[in-house]
């Protein structure tokens, strides 16, 4: 029981951290052109002034999904349906 609670908290913490990171990544995609993105980012391209808006949207949506997961995971426990 105690171990399960710890696992739950760990999962929630991971989801929140990943969510924050993804939203920051989304902001970087929206703000920076392809040439200014860190080289390990998908879409990085030297000399390109193109903004990867879609990559940003994808990162933002997955970030939101992580927050939604954490939100539900920390909600009141419900009895399982019979």
């Amino acid at each position, binding site marked *: 029981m105690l171990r399960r609670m710890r696992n739950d908290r760990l999962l929630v913490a991971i989801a929140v951290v990943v969510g924050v990171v993804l939203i920051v990544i989304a902001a970087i995609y929206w703000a920076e052109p392809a040439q200014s993105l860190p080289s390990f980012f*998908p879409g990085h391209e030297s000399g390109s002034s193109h903004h990867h808006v*879609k*990559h940003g*949207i*994808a990162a933002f*949506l*997955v970030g939101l*999904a992580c927050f*939604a997961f954490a*939100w*539900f995971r*920390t*909600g*009141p426990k*419900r009895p*399982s*349906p019979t």
Partner: protein
Amino acid sequence: MILASLISYPRAIVLGLLQGVSELFPVSSLGHTVILPGLLGWNIHQNAPYFLSFLVATHFATAIVLFLFFRRDWVRILEGIGRSLRDRGIDPADADAKLGWLLVVGTIPAGILGLLLQDTLRKAFASPRTAAAFLIANGALLYGAELLRRRAPQAADDDDTRIARQVSWRDATIIGTAQSLALIPGFSRSGASMGGSLLVGLSHKDAARFAFLLATPLIGAAALLKLPQLFGHDGDGVRGQALVASLCSAATAYLAVRFLMRFFETQTLVPFAVYCALAGLGATIYFAVS
């Protein structure tokens, strides 16, 4: 502007009517939009910005029709999602909330893959010959789904309750991911999601309902994202044609969704599988000899 003039109003009407029907029938709208101009000898550049902007308008019209057709369901689903967020949990008895989150879970993989791969796949496979070959594969996929479908007991009376009980989170992820096949011209979005839904035990009627609900936000969001192109340089010379095609697309999409919801009460995917196989084969032979 010279290229844009290649979409005449009669062609726009044909493409609009075709888009409305083929987007919802499990026969690949993108495949038909690529194959038909090839068959008719229309010199349309499939990857040209003006043609993509034109297509976006017809997709947007289809999404609006789908949303309006299921508008009462969407109101209940959105209320269900709101209740679950407020309560920080999904009540097992709240079918609307469960269905709403199933749609969210199913939309995420398809949305992400679409955002990241749409342009690449379209450029790679947008030739009529390739689309015809994939149309045959789409027929095989539909037929395979019929052969392998799981017949689960359908106890609940309400459509949404049946779907919410039958589809698990994992199932919704798989069905959502399967939709991404539609990024390849020749594969059908509704066909892939209906096939996936049949495999997890939904009836044909419920599978069609789930597929249309799942498709609405994706088609709408994809169109909304690209709609500004239509009002920019890419839309020069095709805005009027796009408007006419959108109206045609909306009309046929409405008739198609009405027809299909009744059709799948009693029928299966087999007729569409046969059509895709024959149409793909016919087009392949035509392109090979012409």
